[in-house]
């Protein structure tokens, strides 16, 4: 059999058509398929968002990035709505600001956003007053929220603002799940699922205010399908998912991001060649990440890259024969 035509080089991609639109009065030209958020970023307009990440398919759930499109009855999520020819977009008029303020206030009244980077400034910018919904409800006991059953709702208590407050789940040595900080952005579910890891250890369980991220049947992580790649931690925007090392250091007050330096190197394990960004504090590696724009990793690592670097900083104890193996 002779193949009549053999493609050698990478198949040519159709050059993308350009789309002309207007964002905040500025004319923008972007390739077809670009989102409104992407178009705005090309001209230096940054629209805040919690659930959007370049390496994940948008799920448009956080509603922080809503913008006005002329002719559209409702606001649209800029992270997932594609730019269309002739669109006139307003990213910061009164209507948009008002909505964004409400979304942020509702989130801040019910979720602990204390470790969400940039959130304090955002709440200030939009003059949010999360306390106006009343004092926060007392925290749920461990496991209570995980036991919520679809359709069985407790009547709301008007004296308190409903919250997700609950104790953090520490069920393994590598990471902590602090769902009091979870805004249900789905990023961890996406990263664990088809977008990257394809392990499907976690999903959203429950409905309405009971919705939460859960392992199958809410089992502990060691009993779940989790393979501890930490790719969920890498995408979490609020610190709800955190490496235990960082969690512990924050707990005892020794986590000082301002003192940390970082360097990009290559993972010392298999031959894939993942770039590791090592975050170092006081000459100790405290965290490993990978750049989102790295073609090999897209920000992902496996358990060895994410956590397996302790061997370079084990301090030999005086008098002991510190061998690198077998100490289990």
């Amino acid at each position: 059999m002779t193949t009549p035509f053999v493609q050698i080089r990478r198949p040519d991609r159709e050059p993308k058509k350009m789309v002309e639109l207007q964002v905040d009065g500025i004319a923008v030209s972007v390739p077809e398929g670009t989102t409104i958020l992407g178009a705005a970023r090309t001209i230096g307009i940054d629209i805040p968002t919690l659930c959007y990440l370049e390496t994940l398919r948008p799920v448009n759930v956080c509603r922080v990035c809503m913008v006005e499109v002329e002719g559209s009855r409702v606001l649209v999520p800029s992270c997932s709505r594609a730019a269309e020819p002739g669109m006139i977009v307003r990213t910061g008029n009164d209507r948009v600001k008002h909505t964004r303020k409400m979304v942020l206030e509702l989130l801040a009244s019910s979720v602990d956003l204390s470790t969400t980077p940039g959130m304090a400034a955002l709440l200030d910018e939009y003059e949010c007053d999360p306390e106006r919904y009343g004092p926060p409800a007392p925290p749920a006991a461990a496991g209570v929220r995980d036991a919520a059953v679809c359709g069985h709702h407790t009547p709301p208590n008007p004296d308190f603002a409903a919250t997700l407050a609950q104790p953090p789940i520490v069920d393994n040595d590598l990471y902590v799940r602090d769902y009091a900080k979870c805004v249900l952005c789905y990023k961890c579910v996406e990263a664990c699922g088809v977008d990257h890891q394809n392990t499907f250890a976690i999903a959203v369980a429950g409905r309405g205010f009971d919705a939460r991220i859960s392992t199958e049947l809410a089992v502990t992580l060691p009993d779940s399908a989790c393979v501890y790649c930490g790719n969920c931690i890498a995408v979490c925007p609020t610190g709800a998912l955190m490496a235990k090392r960082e969690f512990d250091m924050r707990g005892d007050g020794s986590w000082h991001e301002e003192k940390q330096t970082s360097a990009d190197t290559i993972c010392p394990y298999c031959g894939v060649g993942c770039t590791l960004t090592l975050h170092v504090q006081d000459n100790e590696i405290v965290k490993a990440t990978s750049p989102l724009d790295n073609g090999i990793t897209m920000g992902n690592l496996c358990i060895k890259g994410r956590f397996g670097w302790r061997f370079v900083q084990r301090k030999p104890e005086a008098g002991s024969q510190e061998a690198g193996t077998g100490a289990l």
Partner: protein
Amino acid sequence: MEETDVVFLWGSNARAAHPIWFHHLLKGIHNGAKLYVMDPRRTESAQWADVWLGLNVGSDIALSNTMAREIIHAGLVHQEFVSNATSGYEAYKASVESYTLEKGALLTGVPADVIRDAAHTFAKADRAMICWTLGITQHHDAADNVLALINLCLLTGHVGRWGCGCNPLRGQNNVQGGGDMGAIPNKYPGFQEITDPSIQARFEKHWTVKLQPEAGRNLTQMLHAMASGEMTSLYVIGENPVQSDADGHHVEQALKGLDHLVVQEIVMTKTAELAHVVLPAAATWCEGEGTVTNSERRVQRCRKASEPPDGAKDELWIIAQIAKRLGHDWGTPTAEEVWNEFREVAPEFAGGMSYERLDALNGIQWPCPDESHPGTTFLHERLWEKGEKRGPAAPFTVVRHEGPVEMPDAEFPLLLTTGRRLESYNTGVQTAGYDSPLHWGEMLDISPEDAARLGISDNEEARITSRRGSVVAPAHIDRSLRAGMVFMTFHFPENVATNLLTLDVSDPKSGTAEFKACAVRVEPSRALAGSAHT
């Protein structure tokens, strides 16, 4: 990978051993690629396959030759490519003629219609690739196994094209780079032949020293030379052969017999414990500078993130100091200076890879001869060119099925194969240092059938004995194994020295040891001494 149509993942559990590479394969699968996994175990990777070919250990050549015969007989050979760009086709064709589907099924244990389907799917695909790991190379006929897979790609024209080709997935972050830089016995930097007098003359001029003209010994040959007393001194850098090599007792004896053993290491390994001199080294990947080359030939920079512990020295400094004491003053070269010298002596290979460009492009795939060159995404494109540009033909190589050296018999009725698990790495020097919920320690994976027959229950201590040694490990009943096969790793040598069992038999062409097949006997510990039961 993400845009191919058919992937043969052959002798590789990449889901566990190369997890981030597997992400790209999964993208390919989500884009519609068909995945065939050839592995005696139904691994985590095989669970993603459209078709799993659970072949017998060591029957890879039989399987590929059978596929080749089927492709030839079904008229699916890429005639144009074979006649233009290859040599030795007729001899190859004759050599596979006896591998009928029936014979193939008998040798491999894979049903004939499954072999036929895999062969047809591969040959008819527009783009197809074969990716392999140590399941192919840790055999006594390793090189032949690889050649058998290359033959399949040549036969079908799946080479030198986008989305096609033969892709060995390297097991270590710089095993490719070691070869690139000439840390192999028969090549100068940039894979230039040691035995070629003109190349040798060029290197002698550059280094202003006389070079010995013979290829050196590979690891396996070195061990034999040590055992026979021919080799008396050894300088080991960052390797733990006492625990990583096959037939551990033999290795330890060979090292103990040396007049002088120097080990340069970042931690005190079992090998370092035997040394006359230990040179404490910085961990170059994060406490020093340098480059590594990954499986796709991408050279990337390692950068210093933290300071080494007191007393540990930069590896380049150590080597330069040793050179100085041997009478060669190299000064104190930086990693970049050494790299630039490499670019100078191997210009066709790496001339265009300055540190600036490596930074700017997130690494570059060799060859990259000059600074305007973008690097090479895939090799062998020339085979599709016309006339002189095509260059020398790619040869078919006749290979024959032999099977493992040691087959199960009445005394040692099970076949042990070894490999890796996700959370651990090689002899555990690095991975024993972190806490992981996945660290279960060493286990003997055994099929439910064999466990039932031997009266071994899950988690029960079992004694595993081969002709060379005997170890004890808890049994783990694993449904991914077929009866007759057991599986272990060598991640926890302090607890279970798996490589006391394995065979010191290696491939004469590549020197790789047959880690993948050795005959063993398994018994419940309690049935033996009585007191060993925990």
